[in-house]
């Protein structure tokens, strides 16, 4: 008898922006618009969100990333429609080049597809440690009914067959071959060409009732339920007698996070012991999984901060970031394309952040491929190792004048990392809180989308300043103009 599949840690992530629904409503001449949804700035997308959540879950697990046997990633819309989506995420989170797993895609059900596939692999013994990631940042068609609820976010679970804080138990699936949201091959944006009433009465609620009743028999203490439009979730909860689902807070803060929604809603309940029914819906399929937590799952407590943060944005900013509002004229290349020789040489150092430590003097040279000799002592003996992902700003600028499609302001900083390496990177955001001495984390970000190809690399994200530290710093601030 094998152990049930265990969850040893979880992690969550959301993009930097929050779009008030009233902004969207006003743009279309409607009154009202309740709540908000998370939205990606130009440098975030499903891949960067997935990496952020995965690294948090891995950090909470305490495991070395190279012992992870596989990555199971679910997203409605992979960053490369055809391409190395899975391989990029695996490299960015530091998984071994021998790791396996699966990319699940095509609808918001992809998150649960990834979870149950990974659980099956662990149960079967083909993976001892599995990383499950669900992320979404669907681009809703302008003017669609679900536009103001369409959010973005990511969640990750680390599964093993060893002792964990929670166990994955029963599962139920129902299918109904009905088309609701849709995006064709030639399309950039997701459309809603279906009849909302028909979907609600004949598809969604009957499926939820059937599936929910199966789960409800298992002494469920908390529910994570899908709520694609801001009303269906409450209706489903009511017919199940589920009270207020645990997922409600996530929907209120981030909107509908698509493939990530079911697992994110579960994380909201996994910071304490209990039995959670995790239900996902998309593409004519619904799946529910029961997770039983004996105690708080490591990483689950971090969700609160993620839901509470985020910068309010405008509809125009979001449309620009989604490439819906596009400037006229010629643009310059902003990054190194993933099909280039430079990336073939540099994939480990660009995505995996490898540096070359000089054996003779200890200086870390970055990136390794342009440093056959050490910048400090000239030696050519190196060991490759991951560079630190946290450091302090040594100096910086905020660039205000760049050719399109760069958008000002663009902060850039020279950073001294904890291991002594010095790097220079773009800084995420507008640099409003950037100072010499600011603490930063290196985070995967999308530099650009060029000729339709997303291009990724690292940026520095300024850590929020502790108010107590800020007061202290203000009393002896440098004489900077």
């Amino acid at each position, binding site marked *: 008898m094998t152990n049930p599949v265990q969850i040893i840690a979880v992690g969550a992530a959301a993009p930097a922006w929050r779009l008030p629904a009233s902004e969207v409503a006003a743009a279309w001449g409607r009154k009202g618009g309740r709540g908000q949804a998370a939205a990606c700035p130009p440098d975030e997308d499903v891949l960067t969100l997935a990496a952020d959540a995965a690294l948090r879950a891995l950090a909470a697990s305490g495991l070395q990333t190279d012992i992870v046997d596989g990555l199971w990633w679910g997203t409605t819309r992979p960053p490369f429609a055809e391409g190395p989506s899975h391989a990029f995420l695996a490299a960015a989170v530091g998984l071994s080049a021998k790791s396996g797993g699966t990319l699940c895609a095509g609808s918001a059900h992809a998150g649960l597809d990834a979870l149950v596939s990974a659980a099956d692999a662990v149960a079967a013994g083909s993976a001892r440690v599995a990383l499950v990631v669900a992320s979404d940042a669907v681009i809703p068609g302008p003017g669609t009914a679900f536009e103001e609820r369409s959010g973005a976010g990511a969640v990750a679970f680390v599964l093993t067959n060893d002792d964990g804080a929670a166990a994955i138990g029963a599962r139920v699936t129902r299918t109904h071959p009905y088309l609701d949201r849709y995006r064709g091959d030639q399309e950039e944006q997701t459309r809603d060409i279906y009849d909302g009433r028909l979907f609600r009465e004949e598809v969604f609620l009957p499926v939820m009732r059937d599936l929910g009743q199966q789960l409800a028999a298992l002494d469920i203490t908390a529910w994570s339920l899908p709520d694609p439009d801001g009303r269906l979730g409450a209706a489903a909860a009511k017919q199940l007698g589920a009270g207020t689902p645990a997922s409600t807070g996530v929907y209120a803060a981030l909107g509908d996070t698509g493939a990530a929604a079911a697992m994110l809603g579960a994380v909201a309940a996994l910071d304490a012991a209990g039995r959670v029914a995790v239900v996902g819906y998309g593409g004519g399929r619904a799946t529910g999984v029961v997770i039983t937590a004996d105690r708080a799952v490591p990483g689950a407590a971090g969700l609160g901060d993620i839901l509470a943060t985020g910068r309010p944005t405008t509809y125009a900013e979001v449309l620009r970031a989604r490439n819906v509002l596009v400037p006229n004229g*010629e643009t*310059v*290349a*902003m*990054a*190194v394309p993933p099909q280039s020789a*430079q*990336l073939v040489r*540099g994939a480990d*150092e*660009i995505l995996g952040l490898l540096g070359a430590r000089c054996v003779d003097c200890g200086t870390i040279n*970055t*990136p390794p491929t*342009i440093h056959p000799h050490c*910048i400090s002592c000239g030696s050519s003996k190196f060991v490759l190792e991951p560079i630190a992902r946290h450091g302090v700003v*040594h*100096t*910086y*600028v*905020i*660039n*205000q*004048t*760049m*050719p*399109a499609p*760069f958008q000002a*302001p*663009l902060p*850039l900083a*020279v950073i001294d990392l904890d291991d002594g390496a*010095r*790097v*220079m*990177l*773009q800084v995420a955001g507008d*640099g409003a809180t950037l100072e*010499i001495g600011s603490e930063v984390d290196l985070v995967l970000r999308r*530099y*650009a989308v060029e000729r339709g190809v997303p291009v990724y*690399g*690292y940026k520095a994200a300024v850590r929020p300043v502790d108010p107590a530290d800020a007061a202290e710093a203000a009393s002896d601030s*440098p*004489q*900077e*103009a």
Partner: protein
Amino acid sequence: MAWNKVAVVGGGIIKFGELFEQSYEQMASGAFDAALATVDKGFDPLQVEAAFVATQRGTLWGQEGIGGNTVPTAIGLAGIPCTRIENACPSGSDAFRVGAMAVASGVHDVVLVIGVEKMRDKSGDEGLLARAAAGHPVYTRGETAPVLFAPFATRHMHEFGTTREMLASVAVKNHYNGARNPNAHFRNEITIEDAIKSAPVCHPLHLLDCCPQTDGAAAVLLVSAERAEEFTDNPVYVAGFGVATDHPYLHEKSTFTSLRATTMAAERAYKMAGVEPGQIDSAEVHDCFTITEILDIEDLGFVEKGKGGVASLEGETSLTGRIPVNTSGGLLAKGHPIGATGVAQIVECWSQLRGQADERQVEMRNGYALQHNVGGRGSGVSVINILTTNK
């Protein structure tokens, strides 16, 4: 050191500016003619034995991979030996150094050094560093030219209390000098307030902290010192030069309050010339941005490290100051047509040493003038030439 003495016997520049009406070839021809006209006893163009041309970036006017043959045809000397030097912002000063070595070696007696750059045939969006890729090709995009220097300003302000007013004082002084130079791109004076209130370009640098994009050309004539009197009774000699390189990317820098290429090049140039920084009477230094001049005057040893901002604000580098810097208006006011810049600085040094700088003339106590450029990725190349009237 066993090298033959080299004399500068002529130097001229064309009026710098946005020269939309002139071709690259016309600018080269104009600079050559201007240099010929300055030779006291006359100069037959056919005496030129070899030429060294500095043009940093032919792509800025639509010519890729230009060689040394464009200029000889343009100045009516097709057939002479001619080599093009491209070495980032110090291209012009390096062409001068190479020309001087050609004479010092004894291979040539009469050499033309000419710098020509067309910056404004391309719009700002397409022009210098417009790809915003001055940084590492893989790691850091969004680096335009100001990004190469602004981090030094941020750090200099942090460590030494340098202020935006001090930065602005460099722009004010160089515009004052440029207003007195008929060949400068900008001939208007500005105030500290103008500079501080100008539009932000790259924090902490604003528009008037930055040099313009300028078309221009300049030329000098070098001869072996023993033949100098054929051309003039008032020659200027090459006292020495120094070149140095530093790591090409900003994240490889160990300091952001000094440009190591400059300090190393200066050490070499002073040693070769046998002079101390205190003996320099006048200097043309690389002021692509205000912060660059502040770094330069510290790295060249004119003021103590960290005091460059204060020294500028207090007028130590003005025409009547202790060490006049950029009497021509510098890159900030005269303009920065890259290949021509270093050669034009030599022309200014030559004029100052001969007492022919008119309103801009400064006192020559020791008979030494210094010319300096720094540039390239990570400001990793510096060239310094020291000229003298001392035989």
